[in-house]
């Protein structure tokens, strides 16, 4: 751009949109309080599920955003460029195994994967890491062991979940592998909230990126939690339970249920184990599919990587999980 080229900066009412937004949100809050809508049982139920998903997931998003900001500000691009020169058959498994060292749930791994890809790590490896971390991290393995303790299928379930999760993450990474980071990452309009012509210190930069990632991921989490809350409120789970024991269909239904419930990967094993009417394969499918594809992740993926990416991930994860669980069940039998 030539130095004399005109730049355009809006100068009137720079605060106006913010003030209007504040007034709208404040008015909604007052209206809700005045209307006592919590008296309607369904709305109360929705708000409880919606609120609890957010209260649990927001800190994890923030931790993910903090790791992402640390990578952006303190890790040189050259480090990732060196990693991207590793042979591809080595990159994806290495990225998946790196999930062991990242004990946060599925929401926290999304901002980190985005940052890894934007800094130069191969997109496939970043996605493999993102999908594997919520299943392979030590907290999730421990919770699966506790949930299935005393069952005949304890180790089959724990090892099956780890191996199938690892394979699924690698397959998705392989499918995504040919895309460039420009094709993978959706541009972020909210970057305007961070970047300026200021010469900020590193700490200011760090907090700028932290806040931007939080704002970016947070809004999709809010939308996803709202959809999950609505489904939990208005769709009786007994509808799904009626297909328990029907081969293949019960596996598909448990995957759908996992996507609908949007439960954190650190607690989903307890819920899966409670579905005693469903067999081993269906429960394993619940445990592998849910941490990779669910309602809140759908919004996070679509916002971060685009809807085409989400479609690809959902299809590949569903196909590998369905095939894998049936195959593992045959081995277990």
């Amino acid at each position, binding site marked *: 751009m030539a130095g004399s080229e005109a730049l355009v*900066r809006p100068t*009137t009412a720079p605060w106006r949109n913010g003030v209007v937004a504040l007034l709208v949100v404040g008015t909604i809050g007052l209206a809700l309080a005045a209307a006592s809508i919590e008296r309607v049982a369904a709305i109360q139920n929705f708000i409880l599920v919606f609120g609890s998903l957010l209260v649990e997931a927001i800190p994890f998003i*923030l931790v993910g955003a903090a790791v992402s900001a640390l990578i952006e500000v303190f890790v040189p691009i050259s480090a990732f460029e060196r990693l991207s020169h590793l042979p591809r058959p080595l990159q994806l498994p290495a990225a998946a195994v790196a999930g062991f060292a990242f004990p946060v749930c599925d929401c926290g791994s999304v901002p980190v994967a985005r940052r890894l890809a934007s800094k130069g790590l191969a997109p496939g490896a970043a996605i493999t890491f993102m999908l594997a971390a919520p299943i392979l991290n030590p907290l999730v393995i421990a919770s699966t062991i506790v949930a299935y303790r005393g069952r005949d299928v304890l180790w089959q379930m724990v090892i099956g979940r780890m191996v199938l999760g690892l394979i699924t993450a690698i397959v998705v990474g392989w499918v995504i592998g040919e895309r460039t980071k420009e094709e993978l990452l959706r541009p972020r309009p909210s970057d305007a*909230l961070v970047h*300026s012509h200021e010469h900020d210190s590193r700490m200011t930069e760090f907090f700028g990126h932290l806040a931007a990632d939080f704002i970016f991921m947070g809004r999709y989490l809010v939308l996803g939690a709202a959809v999950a809350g609505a489904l939990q409120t208005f769709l*009786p789970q007994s509808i799904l339970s009626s297909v328990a024991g029907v081969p293949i269909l019960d596996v598909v239904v448990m995957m759908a249920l996992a996507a609908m419930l949007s439960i954190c990967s650190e607690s989903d094993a307890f819920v899966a184990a409670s579905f005693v009417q469903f067999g081993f394969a269906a429960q394993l499918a619940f445990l592998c599919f849910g941490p990779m594809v669910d309602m809140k992740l759908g919004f996070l993926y679509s916002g971060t990587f685009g809807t085409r990416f989400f479609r690809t991930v959902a299809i590949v994860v569903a196909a590998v999980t369905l095939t894998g669980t049936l195959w593992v069940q045959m081995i277990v039998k």
Partner: protein
Amino acid sequence: MSTTELPLTLDQAVTEPGPKRFSPARTAVALTVGAWAGLFWFVLLSGRISLYLGTRTNWVVPTGAVILTAAFMGRASSLRVSDPEPIGKRDAISLSVLVLPVVILLALPPAALGSYAVGRRSGVGAAFASTAGAAIPEHGDISMVSVASALANRETMKILVQRAGSVVSFTGFISRQSDEPATEFLLNRFVITCCVADAIDTQVRVANAPPGQFKSDQWVRVTGKVYPLGREVIVDASTVTGIARPSHPYLNP
């Protein structure tokens, strides 16, 4: 929106920083993060953690409050810039989406899952407790979780059968079915592992309750003798007392 456009040259924008002023965009972001920090402190200090999270995950709230406060302070420390960024329409909408849940959770009074959720979640029912290793002791108190465990686990049920007639005291809320006698109701308590989203219902049928005295969703303490009967566990009530909702309305494995 009517905006006047001011032409600046790139050289001016980069080399001639003006006096430092508050940046609307940075301030809006800081306030949004601050709102969430405020919500987490409110949930922590008001004791509402137990309405959303189980004991296994309640550490998330103080941790979140501290990290959000640090993020707020970090962002708030650099609000004054020489080139203030305005708040765009899309940014305002994004920030509103993020602030709205804070307003909703602060505006509405505390609540817990009730009989509406029982109807929606009964499909997974009492099976949960079998996963939590909730054993029934040969002597001593029988908990509601361990009764639920018996419904899903034959070995545990054998112990409960041996202890039929034992006196129990359960706390929960009432749900009613349309075809049941006036002297009966279901006593429910949700078990949560991480958060309300994974809540699973445990329930027993209470018989010989005073008719017409208690409504759905009312919290009661039931004392009586416990009897397993088919796929249900019955409590033959000797006393049913209405109580306020406990500060910890959910059970944890």
